[in-house]
């Protein structure tokens, strides 16, 4: 999992973006609120003015605002909201939404057909399958239950029996939202449990017997397990009769040798994890040892992504291009290196040595020695003083996480003196900083690194808790969709509200594509153009990157119209919640990383903001219906 710059932001950094306030989520939220309020008032006034005339219309709008502030908001009572929520809940249950759980279970039962049994990392495949399946099912469900309820009430005129009761519009809206969220939650819980069971049971397997055991001296035994589920392990059992197999497909087994000489192989260990990473800052050095912003690009194909993190600054045209972190490479046998600086390295946090996980890429510029992998070296370095350890050479284990522990004492140089260095005393600064310098040992070959590729690991969380957090993210998305659904249903008929909500969801999912199209229009790069140009190109069977081959006036008309459409879409997409980012939370759980608290907090804040917005809009529309009634 390669993390992007915005993934490292703390909650505060995300909210306020110090030094780049234009990108801050806070600003984006405020602008959105102001815009909605201004637009809402304007549209409200226009509608009222048409209905009641310009003067009376103004008063109608003013009354609505006054009602909200003076009576409806302060008068909202939890009891009534609760009663309405229960109604909404019951209504949804009566519409047999629980059927979706059945659908999910059937999906899980059939999943075995579609999950590749030969996968190198089955845990990842299983987890990401259950999480994505839940995600899409729940979003679809939220879409259905939230959009049909109010329009149905209005159509059957049951809404009048409600509004004539001493119930406030705020309570109707809140009640619906909470009721539906309750239904969704009730469904998420069994789905989560089923997913947990599916993943843990799906990965459980044992190797029944051992083959080819031989003694390697000192009473140690080496052998191989049988071939089960498209893999086998080799293992070493120590003289005390216990040992571990090697890690294959992300797990290993405990092997014990009984007194009767029989081997017993335990269940898989380590397949389901939630590592808590502590990332450092990365600095590249070029081949002459000079600091460089980035490593060498070895020419891998890249995706154009990461526009979204630029926030409003991209919308108003300040930020440039996609922002995506890729692997930067360092050349072997030169002074080139990547230096990671870690904070908070204290003996209290790392009482049993410092675990460090390394996942870096290898790139061969020449064939070299085929039998052995490329080698890198880790040097521990004091950030401020001239103290560093001797390099620890390792062989790169590409596309795998190489888990090591830094030794508490290591040979090294202190100025001109060579001696044994103590990790915490000699190499870590007083404020707990430590540098890891990674080089490529093989001349003319390259090692690729990103910020998220090397991290210290102060601890691990339980997988169950991590899965719960991933489900939390799904819950937040569901809440958001419900809020949007209820909002649209206050002024649109059921099916139309559903389509509108679906469009918002889809646009949220494809926001990056819209941003990308706009970027190419802004930068004047031919990359297929906007929707009209694309259709023209498809009909003419022209390639994306050629110049649009129509006459000048037609071209100008097409491009202008396209720019209008794309800019409008861009504005709308920027205003919508960043759903792909939220769906991406599943990736953490699947890749065996603890879902960052800051990330969940960010999602929660965004959800709250959008719900609030949807609530306000819903209130005014419902109010206007009431007035109309």
């Amino acid at each position, binding site marked *: 999992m*390669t993390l992007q710059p915005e993934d490292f932001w703390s909650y505060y950094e995300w909210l306020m973006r110090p030094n780049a306030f234009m990108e801050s989520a806070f600003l984006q939220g405020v602008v959105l609120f102001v815009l909605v309020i201004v637009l809402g008032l304007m549209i409200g006034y226009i509608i009222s003015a048409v209905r009641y005339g310009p003067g009376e219309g103004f008063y109608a709008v003013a009354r609505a605002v006054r009602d909200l502030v003076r009576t409806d908001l302060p008068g909202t009572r939890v009891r009534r909201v609760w009663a309405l929520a229960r109604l909404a809940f019951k209504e949804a249950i009566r519409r047999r939404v629980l059927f979706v759980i059945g659908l999910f279970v059937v999906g899980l039962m*059939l999943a075995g*057909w*579609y*999950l*590749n049994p*030969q*996968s*190198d*990392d089955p845990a*990842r*495949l299983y987890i990401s399958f259950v999480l994505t399946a839940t995600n899409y099912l729940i979003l679809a469900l939220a879409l259905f239950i939230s959009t049909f309820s109010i329009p149905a009430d209005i159509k059957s005129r049951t809404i009048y029996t409600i509004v004539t009761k001493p119930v406030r519009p705020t309570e109707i809206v809140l009640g619906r939202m909470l009721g539906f969220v309750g239904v969704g939650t009730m469904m998420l819980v069994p789905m989560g449990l089923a997913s947990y069971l599916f993943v843990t049971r799906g990965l459980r397997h044992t190797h029944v017997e051992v083959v080819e055991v031989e003694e390697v001296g000192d009473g140690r035994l080496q052998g191989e397990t049988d*071939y089960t589920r*498209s893999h*086998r392990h080799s293992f070493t059992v120590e003289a005390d009769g216990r040992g571990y197999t090697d890690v294959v497909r992300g797990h290993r087994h405990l092997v014990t040798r009984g007194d009767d000489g029989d081997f017993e192989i335990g269940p898989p260990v380590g397949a389901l994890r939630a590592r808590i990473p502590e990332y450092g800052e990365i600095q590249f050095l070029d081949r002459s040892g000079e600091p460089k912003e980035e490593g060498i690009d070895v020419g*891998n*194909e*890249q*995706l154009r992504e990461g526009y979204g993190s630029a926030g409003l600054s991209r919308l108003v045209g300040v930020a440039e291009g996609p922002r995506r972190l890729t692997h930067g490479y360092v050349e072997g046998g030169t002074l080139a290196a990547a230096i990671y600086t870690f904070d908070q390295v204290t003996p209290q946090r790392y009482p049993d040595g410092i675990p460090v996980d390394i996942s870096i*890429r*290898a790139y*061969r510029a020449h*064939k070299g020695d*085929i*039998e052995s*992998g*490329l080698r890198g070296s880790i040097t521990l370095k004091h950030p401020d003083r001239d103290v560093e350890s001797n390099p620890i050479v390792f062989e*790169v*284990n*590409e*596309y795998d996480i190489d888990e090591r522990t830094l030794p508490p004492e290591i040979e090294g140089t202190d100025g001109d003196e060579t001696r044994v260095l103590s990790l915490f005393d000699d190499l870590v600064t007083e404020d707990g900083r430590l540098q890891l310098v990674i080089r490529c040992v093989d001349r003319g070959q390259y090692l690729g690194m990103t910020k998220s590729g090397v991290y210290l690991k102060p601890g691990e969380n339980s997988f169950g808790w991590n899965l719960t957090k991933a489900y939390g993210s799904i819950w937040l998305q569901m809440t958001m969709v419900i809020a949007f659904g209820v909002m649209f249903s206050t002024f649109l008929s059921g099916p139309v509200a559903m389509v509108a909500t679906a469009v918002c969801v889809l646009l949220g999912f494809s926001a990056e594509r819209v941003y990308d199209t706009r970027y190419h229009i802004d930068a004047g790069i031919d990359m297929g153009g906007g929707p009209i140009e694309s259709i023209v190109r498809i009909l003419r069977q022209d390639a994306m990157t050629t110049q649009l081959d129509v006459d000048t006036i037609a071209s100008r008309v097409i491009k202008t119209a396209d720019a209008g459409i794309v800019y409008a879409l861009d504005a709308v997409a920027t205003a919508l919640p960043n759903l792909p980012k939220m769906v991406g939370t599943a990736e953490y759980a699947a890749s065996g990383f603890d879902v960052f608290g800051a990330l969940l907090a960010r999602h929660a804040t965004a959800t709250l903001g959008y719900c609030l917005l949807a609530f306000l809009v819903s209130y005014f529309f419902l109010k206007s219906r009431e007035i109309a009634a």
Partner: protein
Amino acid sequence: MNRQTAFGRKIVYLVVLVAMLVPLFLLGQPSGGEGDPGGRLTEMRREFNIAESDLGEISPASETAKLASLGLRGVAATLLWNKAHEYKVRHEWDRLKAALNNIALLQPHFDKVWEHQAWNLAYNVSSEFDDYRQRYEMVREGTEFLQRGVNQNRNAPRLVWYTGWFYGQKIGVADEKTQFRRLFADDEALHERLLEERIAVDSPEARGPLGKPDNWLVGRLWLNRGYDLVDSGVKIRRQTPLNFYETGAKWRIRHAEAIEREGVLDERAQNAWQLAREDWIGFGNRSIPTTAPFTIKLDQLDELSRQVDERMEEFRELTGDAYEVERERLLESLSEEEREILERADEGEQLTDDESYQLQGIRRRIQPAPDSVARQADPDVRLRAIRLAGEIRDLAARASKTDAYREQINYSYWRTLTEAEQEERTVRARRLVYEAEKANAEAEIDKAIGLYEEAFEIWAEIFEDFPILVIDDTGEDLYESIQRYRVAIDSEELPEDFPLRGFVKMMNDEGRIRSDAHQAILNSPDGRIDPDSLPDEEPDYDSPAGGPEGGSDGAKLEVPDFRESNGGG
């Protein structure tokens, strides 16, 4: 009134629905068996061999996926292809494989999917890994992906052929061929799965000299399966038959080369070459469909030429004067200039390149066409002559087709190679070089020099008997040994009586055969040339003056000139 129109409208809908059912029925009707071909769709399914031939082949996963896409199978597959590409860019190999799996479930009968994505895994993705074992795993997975395709498409010989190609070419030619071949030989889990596929990896046909399955031989078994399939009446699609059939015999040759490279230089290698020769000759005697309406056998060229000559003899006897008269007439039709070239050539004078080229055309033009001679023949024998002329035309067409096809794959070269390599002395020569190299590497210089010299003696004999071997890898490898020999004897100059003097002269500085020597060998009827007739320096074909390998950019510019001169000639 209103109700009536509504009712009427419903009736109209019903009629339209029923009317539309009729073509649907005609199109989609299943076959009733016993000579009932069924609807058009059924017919097409059978025609393109995409019908599941028995219930066991229907994959519930695949059918569910197709149904679940609600008729948007194409859209779903397109999205998945995009996803697959994205995963490849992100180096998410596991997900890439999962996506490919799903594409294959959606479109199990689109054989290009299997082919393309298997290639993607085995060739493109495998090379992204640093560890050769992981690379091998990816090659294996790509190949097994293809195997699944074979099982889903029982009538696609190209997929079977491709599987055989992967087992041979990918494992046996890659940079990591030594490692890959070793891993393949020890991959027992794969061997078991291959046995389940009814590929007899445990038979002597598949086992190499060390008793373990050899990738080339296993590939050959796959190819043979494809040949059996075609022999049973399935058509070869998307591939030329020549290419399709050549590979199987080639894989035996490759196998022999591979084991020799790995140091198996005794009767086992000799045996491998003998089998390779059998296979190659077997291939030469296989009927191969051509672009013409007849089939050919590559090894029958001599026989065809003999038949043509025989008929021609008969024809000339039969037609008597008419042949000579026609030839005279053709000679007279030549221009002054052309006649002069012909005369000079007959007198053995040296001609320029341009003139030699013209001469070929002239010779062709003065050759009387049997048809026209037959028409001029004595009325008594005319009918027989015309029939004979027809036979000659037909045989000549076959001979020329055979010749062209042989040229395409360098048939005679491979034939000679297998002939030369199966000899005991060739294997011995190779073993001597191998041992000399080993001694050299271990710094036993005197022993190495002795072995080298002994080997070079034998090689000189082999080249004398099979001159065409000079242009092969054999020549290049040997030249490298000669270079090391030079270092060992510590002298740039080779001794006066060095047995391979002529051979060394034919090689250039890069250790390859000189292009002029190469051309001369190919042009010479028996492959023999006199190395001393070559100029001291290799002509520089890279210069703008152009030449047979004059570089593509130069050739583009010269296109108009070429056309003009062609028109003039």
